[in-house]
Each structure stands twice: as structure tokens, then as C-alpha cells.
């Protein structure tokens, strides 16, 4: 379990993380979503004790990261920025990490195999593709068999097979009861893997909700109607506070559910050929939520 309370981080004049409070529960995949530069990586650095918060605190399983005597057994992390010496081989990188905790060498080999780096384990990391680098980072994260796994943009640079593998891995980790915290700037990716979402924009918490609630809450009620009597429908709906527009031969109704539109049509004897509720896509919902923050950001910059 990861708990942030009033977490705030300033770099000079710039506030990267602003009074952030959230809890990441074990047993599910929690997505950490926000546009680029919204403070996701900074938050993860604060969780790992790499940076000190200006105010507030964050704990993992009730403890501050710097107080762990065996951090690799508690939290496994993949950071977005490269964090491997380019002159060292993948196996030696993992070995050096393992040795700080006395983790046996065969565990290193086990993870090299798990992430599919067996054939390149002796190659210098500087020669790795982005995808291979991500796989190595994931091996490092799982090295200590940690209860909490935290991955920053893990699908970056992976091929479709690798992306599928990550999704399966994340769900498997959660199914084992581990705390899984994954950041992404892609809502569509999160919709496929995450059960719960923490959404931030400009360092502030925007939403802390399940994926289903997030979509339902953010989507506008939008119904597409096809009717030979558009004028009549418009009049029938006018009194219900809906806004109605004609788009490409459709009547687009905003502000009412499909049921409400259907009932109003029936009550007024209007023939409907089609009645389609539209749920906003996750990406739309996400953009709606963060739009305010982005607009504010643009104003602030000018």
C-alpha cells in the first residue's frame, strides 16, 4: 500500500507536485494517469526517496522509503529515465543490485530469463534498444520479489508483444495480492490494465476513482437519434432542458439519457428510426478532465 498525504514538491519556483493525497491499494492495478509533465515521475521519485518532498509525506506499507532496511524486497521500481550504467552488461547491473541485499546470483539469471533478455544478458546496456532497456528495468523491479511494484511508463518503446506481456504481468502481480502502481499518459492503455485510476494534472489530484466510475462520471450524456420528424422531436425535447443539434442527418441530443429521449418521443408520437447512446471514450473523458488544467497552464505561461 502506498499512501501520499499532502505531498508537495517545488523545484525552484516551479511546483511539480501540489498537495497530492492518495492511497494505492494492494491486489489491484492502479493507473497513475496524467499528461506529460504533470508530475507523475516526480511523485514516483518522492515515493522512492530519491527526492525529498517540500511538504507532506509518502509512505509504502506505513514506512518512509529511506527507513527500509531491505528496500528491494519492499518496493520494485522501474523509473522512466534510464537508470543503468551504459557500460555495464544487463546481468552485471542486476548482479550489483542483488548483492546489496545478498540476493543469490541464480535469482538474477531467473529474472533475465523471465523478461526475455537471456541472449543479450552479457551485452553492454548502452547497445540496448528502448524496449530491451524497459525489460531490464522490469527485471530490476522484480529482483527482490517485492510486495509493491511501481512502473513509470512501462510500455514505452515496447513492441505489441511486449505490451501484451506487460499487461499480463501487471494483472498477474495484482492477482498475487501485490500493490501495483503504473503510470501512463495514455488513457487507452490504462483502460486495458488498470482497475483503479489516480489522475493528476499540473501536479494536482484530479480524480481518484475506479476506471468504470471515471468514464461514467466524465462522459457527457450524448444521444444520437434518427427520425423522419426532426422538427417535432426538437419541440418535444425543448421543454426538458436538452440541447439539440442537427448533425449529418442525425439529431444529436445532449443532456438527456437515451431512455428520456425515447420516452419523450413516444409521448409525442414521434417515429424514431435509431436511438444510440454514446459513451465518451476513455481518451475523451481524460481530455475533458485535464482540459481545465491544460488551459490554465497555457494562460499561466503567457
Amino acid at each position, binding site marked *: 500500500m502506498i499512501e501520499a498525504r499532502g505531498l508537495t514538491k517545488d523545484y525552484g519556483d516551479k511546483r511539480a507536485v501540489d498537495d497530492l493525497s492518495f492511497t494505492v491499494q494492494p491486489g489491484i492495478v492502479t493507473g497513475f494517469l496524467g499528461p506529460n509533465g504533470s508530475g507523475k515521475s516526480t511523485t514516483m521519485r518522492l515515493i522512492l526517496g530519491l527526492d525529498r518532498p517540500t511538504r507532506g509525506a509518502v509512505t509504502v506499507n506505513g514506512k518512509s522509503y529511506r527507513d527500509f532496511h531491505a528496500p528491494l524486497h519492499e518496493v520494485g521500481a522501474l523509473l522512466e529515465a534510464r537508470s*543503468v550504467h551504459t557500460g555495464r552488461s544487463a546481468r552485471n547491473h542486476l548482479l550489483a543490485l542483488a548483492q546489496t541485499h545478498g*540476493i543469490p546470483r541464480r535469482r538474477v539469471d531467473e529474472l533475465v530469463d523471465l523478461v526475455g533478455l537471456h541472449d543479450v544478458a552479457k551485452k553492454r546496456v548502452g547497445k540496448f534498444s528502448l524496449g530491451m532497456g524497459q525489460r531490464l528495468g522490469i527485471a530490476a523491479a522484480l529482483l527482490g520479489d517485492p510486495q509493491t511494484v511501481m512502473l513509470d511508463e512501462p510500455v514505452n518503446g515496447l513492441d505489441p508483444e511486449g505490451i501484451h506481456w506487460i499487461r499480463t504481468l501487471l494483472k498477474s502481480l495484482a492477482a498475487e495480492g501485490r500493490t501495483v502502481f503504473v503510470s501512463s499518459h495514455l488513457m487507452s492503455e490504462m483502460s486495458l490494465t488498470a482497475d483503479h485510476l489516480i489522475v493528476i494534472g499540473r501536479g494536482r489530484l484530479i480524480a481518484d476513482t475506479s476506471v468504470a466510475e471515471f468514464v461514467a462520471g466524465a462522459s457527457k450524456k450524448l444521444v444520437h437519434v434518427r427520425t423522419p420528424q426532426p422538427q417535432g422531436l426538437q419541440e418535444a425535447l425543448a421543454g426538458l432542458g436538452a440541447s439539440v443539434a442537427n448533425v449529418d442527418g442525425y439529431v444529436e441530443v445532449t443532456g438527456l439519457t437515451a431512455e428520456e429521449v425515447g420516452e419523450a418521443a413516444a409521448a409525442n408520437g414521434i417515429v424514431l428510426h435509431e436511438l444510440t447512446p454514446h459513451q465518451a471514450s476513455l481518451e475523451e473523458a481524460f481530455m475533458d478532465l485535464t482540459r481545465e488544467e491544460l488551459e490554465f497552464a497555457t494562460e499561466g505561461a503567457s
Partner: protein
Amino acid sequence: MSTVAIPTMAFRGRVTQLRVIRSEWTKLWTVRSTRWSLLVATVLTIGFPILASAVISSHWGQRSPSDRAHFNPLDPALIGSQIAQLAVGVLGVLVISGEYSTGSIRSTLTAVPKRLPVLWAKAIVFASVTFALMLPSVVIAFFSSQSILSRHHASYSWSHPGVARAVIGAALFVTVVAILTLALGTIVRNTAGGIATFAAIFFVLPPLMNVLPTNWNNTISKYLPSNAGRDILSITHDANNLSPWAGFGLFVGYTALAVAIAAFVLARRDA
């Protein structure tokens, strides 16, 4: 849903200073710059004195009597340590600045979040390796150069007063350079900056003193880190130098101060 079988592990360890030392040992030897720098340092520490002694020996007949009288057989014997100091100093900076330039410092500090054990481990490993290579190198350099010079009766024996201290002192001096430059690299966190600082202290500052009035120069120069540190290599002394152990002690003091600053900033700064 398909699953990925994540291998579990019964083992549960904890971070200890000894384990961090083992990790830093692995890290030191698994990058190329280490092997190259230390190979260069070792080869030159031994090779240069042999070369220098051979040249001196072959031109001995051309030396004036006063030149011969003032000749210090230790000069060619320890000349290699001057170059070793450069290779070791650059590597000392790289041992930590390489972690910052590649980002591996984040992995390192995530595994050892208390941070200071990393600095102690790097210092212990790098200093031990340096001393273990330098001590035999300077001893070999001493005996081979003196055997070349002995045919002109211009050599010291190991038992000559101050010789053992000067020869072993050369290895000690390079070892302390290793620790000092590690500290500089930790403070500066940048390869170019760290090497520039090292070069400024050891190679720029001393000749710069010559622009000062002579009596100022004489007063200040002996307290400079490089001059104080090298006093232990010398068996001739004048009023403008500190005694061997006082000078070396001062050099160790400067190094201790740099390590203290490095520890302070490493523990406090955002990584």
C-alpha cells in the same frame, strides 16, 4: 486471462555495509574505464622509472660532477607515481560521476536509500584496489630502477634512511588521491567538472603560485594539497616544505574534509 508466472523467492536479505562493498566491487570491475585506467597506472608506475633509469644510466658519463653529486636516485624511481596519480584521479571522479551521467545513481540509491554506505563502499573498494596495485608497482619500480643505477653507485638501498617511507608513501599518496577525487566527483556530480577540479588542484594551482611574490609563494605553496601530499615521497627537505608526515597528514586532512562535504551533500541532495 493468461498469466505470467513470476518466480517467487524465499530469500529475504537486508542491506549491510559489507554487501554494499561487494556490490561496489562488482560495479568497479564491470565497466571498461576501470581496467584501462588501472592498467595504465600500473604499467607506467613500473615502466617509467625503468625507462628513466636506463636513460640516466646511459648518459651518466656526460653528467657534470656537481650533477652527479646532487642526483637523487629516488627521483626516477618514483616518477611513475606522478602519472599514476593522473589515471587514478580521473578514475576516482568517474567512479561516481559515471553514475550520474548514465542515471545509474538512481538504481544505486533506490537499492541503498540511506546513501552513505554507497560512498563508504566506493571509497573502501577503490582505495583498496589502488593501494593493492600501487604498492607492488612502486616497490618493483624502486628495485628495478636502483639496480640499473647501481652500476654508477648512484642508487639507494631499501634500508637507506627515509627510502622505505618514501616508496611506500608514493603508494599511500596515490591511494589518498583516489579517495579525494571520489569525493570531488561526488560533490560536483559531473565528469568534466570533477576532472577539471582535480586538474586545477593538482596541476594548475601549484604553478600559479609562481606569480606571487617569492615570500608569499614560499609561505603558501607548501600548504597546497598536492605539495603537502608529495612531501612523503621526498627524502631531501628544505625550509619551504613541511616534514613528510606533517605534509601527508595535512593532505589526508584536506581529503577528510572533501569526504565530509561529499557525504553531507550526497545525503541531503535530490538524486
